[in-house]
């Protein structure tokens, strides 16, 4: 029988999810801006967890079932740097050899710096869903750099080797062979601080991502309409101060702008796909979220680790810590609970 047992049931996991939801709501909104030539897009994004559950399965996996996120606030601010449009400037007197000697004055259609921003409030209109399965595995890390050091010596000696970094580089470059070396190194270097400490052997816990799926699944009709008619919304904003009688005239003058905006936005009928694509490829927003999750579901970075000769009692007066060996660490998942067990030798 193991010396130490720790068991957590499904309800506890679900309470943690609920608590996580509360935590997400308390966070200030995330913001970012991307520019694409004359067009910019900024998002201000907060999260709410509205549904979802964690199931423990008798296949040894933890199943996250339809964790639904709605975005509140979710403000997309479209910015357009409008080019100048002039009327006038016609040549009205042309003399041979001399050329045009008289022009009519040019008048700028815009009153000043013609940059406009159009905020679109999509709060509570879009729902994303995350589902996935993962397992918890344990590994014992024994560093070559430890050499013949005793347990106390290894505990007291910081790891100054590059063993962990080099290991990460190898894993990243073999998993993502298309990534340039500089990016492989940068990614590895970013992850090393989560793992590196001293030379002592360590038990490490990993969340192995079996599969996951994170998609936008729903968008309210009103929000879909807003996005489909976004170009009209922008044009209406520009034309707001113009008397109704003259709106069509001004529209005709600025028709090249309208065509350019339509081409840039190119919002298709499938709003969800478009928005997902804009958010995911333009800013990697969903990647950021997925990465937040995958960072802890990754097979490289343990979400928790402790020394296998566990320092039960530390001392600051010069006495060596009392190290207690922990062996046979195991994690088991069944329908009822997730159990961590170990032996104290």
């Amino acid at each position, binding site marked *: 029988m193991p010396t130490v047992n720790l*068991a957590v049931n499904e*309800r506890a996991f679900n*309470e943690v999810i609920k608590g996580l939801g*509360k935590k997400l709501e308390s966070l200030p909104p995330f913001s970012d801006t991307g520019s694409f030539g004359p067009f910019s897009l900024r998002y201000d994004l907060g999260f709410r967890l509205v549904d979802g559950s964690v199931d423990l399965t008798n296949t040894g996996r933890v199943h996250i079932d339809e964790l639904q996120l709605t975005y509140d606030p979710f403000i997309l601010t479209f910015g357009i740097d409008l080019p100048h449009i002039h009327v006038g400037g016609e040549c009205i007197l042309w003399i041979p050899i001399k050329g045009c000697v008289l022009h009519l004055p040019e008048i700028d259609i815009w009153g000043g710096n013609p940059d406009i921003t159009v905020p679109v409030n999509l709060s509570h209109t879009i729902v994303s869903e995350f589902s996935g399965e993962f397992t918890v595995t344990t590994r014992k890390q024994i560093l070559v750099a430890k050499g013949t050091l005793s347990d106390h010596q290894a505990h007291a000696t910081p790891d100054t080797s590059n063993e962990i970094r080099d290991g990460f580089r190898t894993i990243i470059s073999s998993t993502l062979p298309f990534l340039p070396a500089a990016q492989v190194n940068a990614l590895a270097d970013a992850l090393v601080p989560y793992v590196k400490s001293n030379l002592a052997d360590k038990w490490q816990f990993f969340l192995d991502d079996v599969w996951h799926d994170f998609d936008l699944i729903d968008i309210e009709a009103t929000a879909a309409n807003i996005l489909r008619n976004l170009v009209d919304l922008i044009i209406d904003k520009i034309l707001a101060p113009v008397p109704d009688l003259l709106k069509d005239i001004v529209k005709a003058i600025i028709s090249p702008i309208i065509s350019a905006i339509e081409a840039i936005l190119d919002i298709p009928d499938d709003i969800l796909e478009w928005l997902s694509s804009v958010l995911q490829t333009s800013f990697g927003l969903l990647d950021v979220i997925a990465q937040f999750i995958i960072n802890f579901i990754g097979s490289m970075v343990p979400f928790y680790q402790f020394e296998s000769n566990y320092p039960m009692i530390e001392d600051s007066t010069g006495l*060596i810590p009392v190290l207690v060996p922990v062996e046979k660490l195991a994690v088991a998942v069944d329908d009822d609970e997730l159990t961590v067990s170990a032996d104290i030798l």
Partner: protein
Amino acid sequence: MALTDHCDVFGSVHEKGFNNVVLHLQQQRPSLFNYGTISFVRNRHLLCDQAIIRAVDPDVELFGNPIITERPLLSIPGYSGPFGLEYCFQLSELSIDFHPGNVHSLPPELNPPLKAQRFSLKGRACAGLACPRSEILNRIEPQERAFFPSFFGSDSPIRQPKPDREDRKEGGEGPISVMTPSHPIPFDPKNIICFCLDLFVVLRIERSGPSADPMLALRLDNLEIVDVKPAGLEDAVECYLKTVLMMGVLPKIKLALRAFVFSIENFLTIQPTPISPAVPFNPAIEQDQIKVFINVTA
């Protein structure tokens, strides 16, 4: 039957785990378990229980940590000189046994077997006194003035010599001044008198205090020092130890349960599972383990 049938989080530690931790503590912090005067510190082979000395972790000396805690010399009542006796004291064989008792063989005085929700502690205390030879004592005995008794009064016809000026007592006995001994009395290593006593204590965990602010306390059921003669001495020492435990030690080991209600940034609360027919004891001492039951609430 799942471990978390009646709670959200379950934790348990087997008595083997506790006992192994104590063993490692003994091996890596030997100075908590071995005490002695200067000669014993410098010559640890003189200690009574060599088994625990041999088990000390090599890293203790590698890191320059002490093996034995030095204690002052034992002062000699009535003697005010610089000499003191040398001694050593060691604690060993510390272990815990959760119900049902299968690690300790409890002495009959403690009414074995170990009852439900009880645990027993066992320890062995070994002491050694470096007893000096008489020749050495004779050599270093203090040169006190001879006592010159006066048998007859001044009116008596029987004459007695008067004491010398140095022998005359002036104004009666003065106060006894005792200086801290600084010189160990030399002794023959073969003359170290060692003895060991085994102590058994049976304890239980009790929930007490008002319901709004409950606490966990350790209660002493009984204790026994094995085979001290005469019986009256054993009883007196046991009584003394019981008093020390109940008045001086156990009252300090109370845990307010409120301290175990953890709130994580106001979105998660972790607290002990309330007592109920499904969870009659929390923590529970059974199946050779101590078990705790915890609830999680968002």
